[in-house]
């Protein structure tokens, strides 16, 4: 019986991991659209900072800590630093996409 329970737990855990991986893939597939929204918004505007805020919250929760931190840094930096912050963010964003498509 213990064995059966363990097997059940393992299956449930695998199922959960698979669901999380699917959500993670879906999030990464949406990154180009998130970048388009960021790039199309006027530089430093409230709309651009709102997009950065959403990305900051989402990326970290999906396990992309560096991407989330870069989005948060860009959200909170001043207009002079924003160009460099967005370049860093773009690089991390494409790295995340590349890593996902390589799997």
């Amino acid at each position, binding site marked *: 019986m213990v064995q059966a329970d363990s097997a059940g737990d393992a299956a449930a855990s695998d199922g*959960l991991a698979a669901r999380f991986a699917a959500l993670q893939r879906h999030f990464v597939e949406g990154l180009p659209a998130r970048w388009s929204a960021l790039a199309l918004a006027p530089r430093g505007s409230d709309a651009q900072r709102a997009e950065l805020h959403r990305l*900051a919250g989402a990326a970290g929760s999906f396990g992309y800590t560096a991407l989330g931190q870069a989005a948060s840094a860009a959200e909170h930096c001043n207009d002079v630093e924003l160009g460099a912050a967005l370049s860093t963010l773009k690089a991390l964003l494409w790295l995340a996409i590349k890593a996902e498509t390589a799997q």
Partner: protein
Amino acid sequence: MKKLTRVMCVEDDPDIRLLIEMSLAIVGQLDVLCCASGSQALASVTAFAPELVLLDVMMPGLSGPETLCALRQLPAMQGVPVVFMTAKAMPAEVEQLLLHGATGLIVKPFDPMTLARDLQPFWEHGRGSS
């Protein structure tokens, strides 16, 4: 001890909404209703009768604090704990959010494996103070 069983989540970002739903419904085994906006939440809250509301702060249309004010106008929602969820967590902002009548705050990024467990103390505290 009684456990939290019914949670309404209000979040405009579809990816985060799905992650919260998975986290609360599958990991936490809770009954969950996810809404994409404050107005959608207001339309559904009475029928769903949540024991706790998890509310994003920055949303287009009704913001989190505006949604909270509107929820508090509903008789059934006056004692229900509301927990804000935000990527902004500067102390002054946290204080401001709590002044709006929130029970607590969950900071994004959150851990999907522990979110349901993390809400339990807010529910116990909120019930105790209502």
